[in-house]
């Protein structure tokens, strides 16, 4: 019986994971064929990742927000507002890069605290509070930016959004530093996995099943290499992607291995139970919003670097892209369930759609319709795969 249970769990997990992968594969193969390979060129894939990076970063912490049964409709506007503040400071006021960063952090914390105060402590519905913030921030953007495009920001600032890792010695189109980083990352992964597994076996928590474990590891490594090679064979890792990977890893860890992460899920699953378990739910929700706005700040800096200037409409509806990505990636809109990596992949999937359809030079109306249908498909597959579980 115990055995059966474990098996069940495993099967479910894999089917569930597959659903997202299947979608990704379908989309990639289809676009690959339709664009005659252009879509799958390292160059385009690198572009694609950069096109999706801003929203993917927002999706990381949006996952936490949604999992905890909250919402953030202000993320996109906050991105625009923070970007405008940064641009005004840099361009109009001539501040240096470091002070500008500090100002960005300060603004993030301020917005985060504002949300935390009303949502966590005053218990106002997150949906409405963040909608109100969206309006207020739109006003602030117009107030300080006066509707004009403000730019360009300095190179030292723009780097995060547009530059690539420096390279020492490019051998036959291979970006050495990126390769080294990839290898180091893989080695770390293998080491951590093996040692934790060994420990588990030593404690008698799992039966030794190295075959399966190794199969999993090999596929993870293969995937990592495929994705990394996109960059290694093109121009190396962009800083933005490195930030995305780092934050995804951090938050994946936080979600799965820290008390904070667990509390987030507990609050989303059953607030009352969480409270009765002695969790200071207010403080956890506060932390969620603080972290979230900081990550939005990071996205803002990347966006600003990428686009080069701040405009009044920057970031409009990014929150929707991020929320969509989260849900496509397996986060339940009703809270309590979700995962960071899925959210990032989901957001990237939606970015691939945009990218592929524009490569095909599809008309406006078909683009909307296809995107809507794919969204339906993604969510349907997710639901079906989840049903299989029970």
């Amino acid at each position, binding site marked *: 019986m115990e055995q059966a249970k474990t098996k069940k769990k495993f099967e479910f997990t894999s089917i569930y994971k597959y659903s997202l992968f299947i979608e990704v594969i379908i989309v990639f193969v289809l676009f690959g064929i339709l664009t005659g390979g252009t879509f799958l060129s390292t160059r385009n894939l690198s*572009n694609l990742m950069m096109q999706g990076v801003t929203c993917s970063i927002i999706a990381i912490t949006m996952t936490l927000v949604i999992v905890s049964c909250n919402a953030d409709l202000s993320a996109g506007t906050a991105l625009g507002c923070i970007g405008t503040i940064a641009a005004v400071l840099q361009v109009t006021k001539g501040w240096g890069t470091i002070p500008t960063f500090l100002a960005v952090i300060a603004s993030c914390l301020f917005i985060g605290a504002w949300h935390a105060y009303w949502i966590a402590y005053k218990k106002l519905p997150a949906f409405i509070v963040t909608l109100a913030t969206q309006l207020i921030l739109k006003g602030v953007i117009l107030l300080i930016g006066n*509707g004009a495009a403000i730019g360009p920001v300095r190179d030292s600032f723009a780097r995060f959004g547009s530059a690539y890792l420096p390279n020492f010695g490019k051998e036959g189109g291979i970006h050495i530093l990126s390769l080294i980083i990839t290898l180091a990352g893989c080695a770390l992964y293998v080491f951590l996995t093996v040692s934790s597994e060994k420990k588990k076996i030593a404690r008698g928590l799992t039966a030794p099943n190295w075959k399966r474990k190794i199969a999993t590891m090999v596929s993870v490594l293969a995937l990592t290499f495929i994705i990394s090679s996109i960059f290694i064979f093109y121009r190396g890792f962009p800083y933005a992607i490195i930030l995305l990977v780092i934050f995804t890893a951090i938050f994946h860890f936080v979600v799965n291995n820290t008390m904070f992460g667990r509390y987030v899920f507990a609050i989303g699953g059953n607030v009352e139970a969480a409270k009765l378990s002695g969790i200071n739910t207010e403080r956890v929700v506060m932390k969620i919003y603080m972290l979230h706005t900081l990550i939005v700040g990071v996205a803002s800096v990347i966006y600003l670097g990428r686009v080069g200037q701040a405009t009044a409409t920057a970031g409009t509806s990014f929150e929707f892209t991020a929320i969509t990505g989260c849900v496509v990636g397996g986060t339940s809109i009703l809270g309590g369930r979700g995962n960071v990596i899925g959210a990032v992949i989901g957001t990237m999937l939606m970015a691939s759609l945009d990218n592929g359809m*524009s490569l095909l030079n599809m008309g406006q109306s078909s683009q909307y319709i296809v995107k809507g249908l794919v969204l339906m498909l993604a969510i349907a597959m997710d639901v079906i795969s989840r049903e299989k579980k029970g």
Partner: protein
Amino acid sequence: GCGQEAAAPTDGDSAKDAPKTESTPDAAENDNADAKAGEESQSDSIKVGYSLKTVQEERWQRELDGCEAAAKDLNVELIYQVANGDAQTQVSQIENLITQGVDVIMVTAVDAGALTNILNTAKEDGIKILVYDQQLENTYGDAFVGYDDFTNGTLIAQELKNLDIKGNVVLLHGDKSSGIEKIIDGEKSILDQLDVEIVMEQYCQNWGAEAALGYAQNALAEQNNDIAAFVCMNDGIASGTIQALEEVGMDGKVAVTGMDCELTAVQRIAKGTQTSTLYKDSVALSRAAIETAVKLAKGEAVTTESTINFGVNDMPHVIVNSAVITKDNIDSELIDTGYYTKEEVYAE
């Protein structure tokens, strides 16, 4: 085309001076002193309501500033409402302008087709309607002040002809729904004469730089960097495009056109990364608009050479010229006229 001729009566040298003059054809009739005196007594009571689509782009903020300045000069009371790109809001706001008892409604439409009924209501209330810059569809108006979209389209593309561009061209437009088809027609009318192939044509959401950046990247990837020119419908879109070009080290090597003459665009032209932009003299435009409004309010005839029809009636078309700005004429067109200062444009 016709736009330049329409402005001709004002000044001899239209190509050069159009931007800095008040280009209402009738402006020449009244000498300044007369106009001032006449208006001071009468325009006391003239109330102009201006409903504009957005101020989230630099250009419209400038238009608004220009109108306010002109209104102050002419002693007209100007009240304005901004619709934030929402057609329904604009309808409501025009209603509210009517409630406030304006004599003339000046309108820059969010959506070319959304104002039919409300402007009819205004007309029934005896309010004059001045359509400002953005053309309407199936809608009544008393006068139209603005550029000629088709001409603007041709002007944007003209620069490609001047540069004798050959090969692949990408067209990046603004939002599909905002009545930009005439501009596109204008662009294509010139492109048809060239030896080019349009390899991509996309509409950028919110006229946004980020969307443009993505499309430009995709176009470059798809064509293997073999693109001769990007025809961008405004400077925001151009900025995204240039960002994509910078990424592949091709900035300055590919022609990129723009429109609206934003400061950052002019800086890029000075730097050589953007090829051209369209200088639409907001001062002249807004001044012409206010002057025409005063005429309408007073019941004077607005006489122009050309008329325009938005599907209901012919109305006088007060055309204001736009000028192509390239690296060569920044100084003469923009700095000498005081539109931008040298420091602003050439700041590092």
